[in-house]
């Protein structure tokens, strides 16, 4: 916030972004963040290149084929009618977010969100090209010369390169990746691919390299409503005010204030006011002011403070994950995960129920979908012999990856009552549907007594179970 002051001397039409120069830090949370970043990048960037043998589409393990309206995810083929899975997935994602936030605060924001990951990556590039925080601040303040142009230019060029590859990779999930790469550079890819790549390159660059924490502070809705899920028992990144300030406040380790005993004798707390926790903060806040809405819970200030505490020989944990209740209590205990709460358990129940339902739903999916609809105009007709005819529309969806022939029979009424017309073979192409009309003719007496029967569709492939569908019969 030190840079903020100079903007206040005169009135501006708009609020300028206050540049944040983040100092790098070592520590367990930094290592965890780096681990998550590596894993996420490997998965995201490599997945479109994983080959997978397919009969009806390109040999790509994960392919969201919008043209044929099928999503291929390894051996799972998702059809538009499976859209309920997406709804379930969104429900799971939302409850999981609520569940985790209720337990340990904005862990999603600090460690997993793509805004955090890409910003982290771009800060790493800056660090690599321009150097550590003091070097970057000096570069920022110095006039435009060759060094500044070169260093800033290079880092932004690298960021644009990463942003481009990010945009390309996103598009590669929707087309066969090797082909897209070739077509993109030879000008043969379709318009949608170019628009996607350009838009995503631009947004990734703007969000990760320019806007950064402003995305979280001003734009992201999650960031604003996650505070609602906090409870007094939620573990949040907190500065131990009591320990850090003592009675007389924080103080620099001047001579006479170096050892803990000396400081405590004079009423000063353990915080030596080195400002490291502020310098490493990617959103530019001071955690010592307490919980703030800008805080993305990345825990880097914990790493920074722990390092300082180690170097001055004080115990760690001046900044730590702790709950509001524990910090305020008269005799605090070591921080612990307080999960025995109605809210947390409620989220856990909703979460596991929906995960179970989704797994069950995917596990019991069928390769054939059959729908029978009775033709209602007219409901039935009388034939010359006095027999009664009902008509039905049969809808078969072949969800396998090969062409399948189906056999249609009836159960509960004579086999010969079924009239398929001139059609001799019901053949459905992979991933396609077939809608056709059938007639059921029953003699008068039987028609009077028949109210329900079954259509049976048997896929002519090995091991396929026949699928029965109830249908009602109307006669007089």
């Amino acid at each position, binding site marked *: 916030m030190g840079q903020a002051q100079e903007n206040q001397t005169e009135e501006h039409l708009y609020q300028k972004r206050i540049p944040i120069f983040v100092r790098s830090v070592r520590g367990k949370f930094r290592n965890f963040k780096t681990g998550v970043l590596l894993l996420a990048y490997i998965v995201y960037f490599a997945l479109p290149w994983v080959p997978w043998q397919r009969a009806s589409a390109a040999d790509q393990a994960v392919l969201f084929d919008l043209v044929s309206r099928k999503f291929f995810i390894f051996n799972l083929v998702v059809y538009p009618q499976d859209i309920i899975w997406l709804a379930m997935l969104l429900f799971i994602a939302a409850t999981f977010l609520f569940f985790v936030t209720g337990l340990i605060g904005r862990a999603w924001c600090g460690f997993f969100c793509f805004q955090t990951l890409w910003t982290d990556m771009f800060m790493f590039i800056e660090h690599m090209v321009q150097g550590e925080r003091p070097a970057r601040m000096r570069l920022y303040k110095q006039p435009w010369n060759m060094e500044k142009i070169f260093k800033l230019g290079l880092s932004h060029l690298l960021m644009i390169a990463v942003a481009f590859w990010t945009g390309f990779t996103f598009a590669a999930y929707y087309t066969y990746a090797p082909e897209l790469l070739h077509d993109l550079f030879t000008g043969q890819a379709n318009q949608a691919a170019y628009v996607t790549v350009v838009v995503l390159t631009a947004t990734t660059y703007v969000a990760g390299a320019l806007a950064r924490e402003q995305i979280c502070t001003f734009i992201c809705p999650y960031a604003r409503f996650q505070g609602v899920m906090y409870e007094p028992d939620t573990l949040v990144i907190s500065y131990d005010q009591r320990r850090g300030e003592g009675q007389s406040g924080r103080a620099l380790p001047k001579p006479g204030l170096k050892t803990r005993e000396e400081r405590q004798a004079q009423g000063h707390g353990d915080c030596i006011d080195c400002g490291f926790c502020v310098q490493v903060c990617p959103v530019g806040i001071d955690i010592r002011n307490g919980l703030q809405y800008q805080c993305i819970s990345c825990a880097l200030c914990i790493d920074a403070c722990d390092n300082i505490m180690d170097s001055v020989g004080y115990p760690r944990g001046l900044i730590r994950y702790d709950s509001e209740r524990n910090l305020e209590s008269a005799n605090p205990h070591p921080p612990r995960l307080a999960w025995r709460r109605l809210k947390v358990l409620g989220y856990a129940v909703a979460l596991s129920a929906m995960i179970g339902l989704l797994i069950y739903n995917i596990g019991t999916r069928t390769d054939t979908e059959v729908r029978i609809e009775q033709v209602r105009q007219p409901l039935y007709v009388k*034939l010359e012999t006095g027999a009664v005819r009902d008509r039905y529309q049969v809808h078969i969806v072949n969800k396998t990856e090969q062409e399948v022939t189906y056999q249609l029979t009836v159960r509960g009424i004579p086999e010969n009552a079924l009239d398929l017309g001139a059609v001799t073979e019901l053949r459905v192409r992979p991933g396609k549907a077939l809608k056709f009309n059938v007639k059921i003719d029953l003699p008068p007496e039987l028609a009077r007594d028949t109210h329900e029967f079954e259509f049976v569709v048997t896929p002519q492939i090995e091991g396929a179970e026949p699928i029965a569908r109830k249908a009602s019969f109307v006669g007089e």
Partner: protein
Amino acid sequence: MAQQSNNQTTGHVWDDDLQEFTNPLPRWWLWAFYLTIIFSVVYWLMYPAWPLGSSYTKGVNGVNSITYVATTKDGQQVEKTTHWNTRAELMKETNAAAGVQKQWLDQVAATAYGDIAKNPDLMQFVNSAGKTLFADNCAACHQVGGAGHEAGNPQTNQVGFFAPNLADDYWQWGGTYDEISATITGGRTGFMPAKGLAGALTDEQITNVANYVLSLSGEPHDADKAKLGDEIFHNPAEGGCLTCHSADGKGVPSMGGLNLTDKVWQWVDVPGQADAAAKVDVLRAAIIGGFNHVEAMPKWGTRLKPEQIKLLTVYVHDSLGGGK
């Protein structure tokens, strides 16, 4: 943020103590505002925007224009280029859709009748396209599902308008592909003279013929009267019914004579009557009134294209009913 600490206000004071800060706008907001202004200018150049009295601005000529093929009144195809508008957009999309449909229509036109019905994929097209064609042209009389319109109201002896049921397996004018196609192309006019061919049947004779007709399909009847009716039915000088209904009562499809021996009653609602006397009554009403329709089935040959008639023929033959 620290900018609130200097407490700059606009200087206005409302309601004694209500003041307004002059906090600066966020830069991103300001830029977004400028972008909307740029957007509006670009929009103005590309799309119809400003009203000018009876006209309007149409955007810069040649930018964002739409080219489509239009058919003039005399059937000529001309290419038109206009400024962007939703009507031209619709024309373009309709042309594209018609192009897709044409492939299927061509396939129907090129395939023999019997082979169309054997091909489930082609039948899928016939079902969806035929449904629309049928709804547009035929459903007014035959109903959406082809159930037709049953004529006859015994209470008022009123015949009403009659459109055969196309969903059953009886075909008044023949149920082969060629016969159905001929019916659609040339139209049909059903006719039955009142009171027999000569128009001179007495009341008693009419009752006898009605009983005979009931006997043909096994409905309850008076056997003695039916026997008398049999003679009138077959005597060209009296009833002369056999001319159209044929000697065995099965009807002559080329004349549109109904089959009187089956269980299908389309014109006169015999099965719906409670007792034998009522059944005789409705039949008598039909014989007395005859059948002389002004609302005949019109010719569609001049209105529909041959491939549309072919498609409708298959739809009527295979999707609606049991063609023969």
